[in-house]
């Protein structure tokens, strides 16, 4: 797999991402500093106030991200290393989007059904396995998880309508 430097493919460069991420981190740093000032970041009678430590943490975040921003700015014209190509990004989305949908489903209908669906659908659609195999694996993992967590370890996991029907 070659990470080539030519921009014939649609791609995002590392320097671009560096700049964006530096700005985001800087924003976080500013947020931390703001919150620290709100809490009070100096010495009270009995020692440092709640915002003392976070203030310096936030300040360091701001300083470091600013430096990284400037460093990247200096390289913006010259550095051509690729962060991610369109192809790679599409592949990442293939798992990220379903995974996000999966978490949403866990919230709605419980984890066991969602897991079975997620695994089966992923195997069938993305992995191009036969549906029988996909369903078997999906159900297998889901049921083993059920036995392990509900029955054996007795750790409650999010459940939905199907499990309620079964009496759990």
């Amino acid at each position, binding site marked *: 797999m070659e990470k080539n430097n030519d921009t014939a493919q649609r791609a995002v460069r*590392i320097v671009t*991402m560096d700049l964006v*991420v530096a700005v985001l981190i800087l924003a976080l740093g500013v*947020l931390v500093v703001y919150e620290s000032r709100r809490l009070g970041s100096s010495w009270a009678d009995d020692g440092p106030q709640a915002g003392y*430590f976070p203030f310096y943490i936030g300040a360091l975040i701001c300083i*470091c991200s600013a430096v990284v921003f400037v460093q990247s700015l200096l390289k913006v014209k010259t550095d051509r290393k690729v962060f991610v190509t369109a192809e790679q990004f599409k592949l990442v989305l293939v798992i990220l989007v379903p995974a996000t949908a999966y978490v949403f489903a866990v919230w709605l209908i419980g984890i066991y059904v969602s897991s079975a669906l997620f695994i089966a659908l992923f195997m069938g659609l993305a992995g191009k396995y036969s549906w029988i195999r996909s369903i078997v694996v999906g159900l297998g993992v889901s049921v083993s998880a059920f036995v392990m967590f509900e029955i054996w370890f007795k750790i409650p996991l999010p459940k939905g309508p199907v499990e309620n029907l079964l009496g759990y």
Partner: protein
Amino acid sequence: MEELNALFHGFSIALTPFNLMLMFVGIILGVIIGVLPGLGGANGIAILLPLTFTMSPTSAIIMLSCIYWGALFGGAITSILFNIPGEPWSVATTFDGYPMAQQGRAGEALTGAFTSSFVGALVAVLMFTFIAPLVASFALQFGPPEFFSVYLLTFCSFVGTGKGNPFKIVASMMLGFAMAAVGIDIVTGQLRLTFGITELLSGFHFLVAVIGLFGIGEILLSMEEGLSFSGHTAKINPKIVLETWKQLPRYWATSIRGCIIGCWMGIIPGGATPASFMSYGVARKMSRDGHKFGTGQLEGVVAPETAAHAAGTSALLPMITLGIPGSPTAAVLLGGLLIWGLQPGPLLFVEQKDFVWGLIASMYLGNIAGLIVVLTTVPLFAAILRVPFSIIAPVIVVICAIGAFTVKNNILDVWLMVVFGVVGYVFKKLDYPLAPLVLALVLGDAAESSFRQSMLISQGDLTVFFSNWLVGSMTGLALFALFWPLISAALARLRLAARRS
């Protein structure tokens, strides 16, 4: 020697068939727990504690401590084979363990990890046997300034020995601290950085961050290679084991350093996690091949594993002698002791000889048994890796989701896991190191509270961190480690100038 007599007596107690069976059951359960992300050592022992109420306290502690060893060993398996640390103290093992697996040397990495763990734990137990009373009196001298200087040393050595952009390292670390600060401030009771979101009252739990950053992040990263990517085959047969064992004596210095760091961190309660990071950092600095760390150096696996196991084992020392648990898992074990009506402390050694020495004897046996068990069951885990990625990926996501949820029974954590996953993906590609972030997240609260307590004691005087030889030397070392890159660069320039003139 009195201790040896007591030890042999302990062996006679530990070597009953029932207790031996409990040992093996405990180890296997422990490995499973250690391997599953989210079902951590402390968690797992807490769940299994009620099972032991029907046993005698000696048998119970033998089984529970074997679960503990199993979890210590198990964390290394997923770190090396999947790059998902099963336990926070196996994060450092992923740095070189996973690259080794990627190069087809998983069997070597696993053997190296398990053997180093065994050595670390064995040294810790030997130390435990002979100097427990001595250490008890010494540990009492540790106050907040000493604790803070230890944390400072850990963090500074990470910045000082890291390669790559130091600003990114510090930024990453500070983000970890910021996340650790979210929630209720223990000292003043104020809410920090929660911005009105009630779910953030308890802050970010490091397990959720670890599962997201390392588990989900790694999956996202692997997807770039496409679904044809399949896991790493790990052949572990006696030949590989012997080959690796032949190589390991080369790293005797790293091993000894790891043991010392581990025993030290376990006793003073720093814990296995900072011990593993510190040992890795120190080994990277002191090794001839230090610059190759991160690309699949066996030494990079030996260092953290030895320290983590030495620390995990010696963490039981302050628990038994002082009633101070040296790690979260030790805290759970302490709870068990109290439930069984046993009072930890010097009196325990006197009044409950059977219990204490039975436990200590089982620590030796448990480790030997543990090593045998993991070396033989690894092919089982290796077979899992030959499963194609399109099956493994969603299954790992499911396991991670379960792991993230069981931390606090909160669905928000599962969402956070996904967010952390994206962050982990981006950070890894941009060379923002994740280890300092996780370390700061884990230790941030403890570091901050020890700092504040120190300030309270000294009334705001920062020189408290140089007030005695112990804390002064550690603080000094910390600052030295922090500025080491500058110092070594300056020294190099001086040498160059001297050569020219």
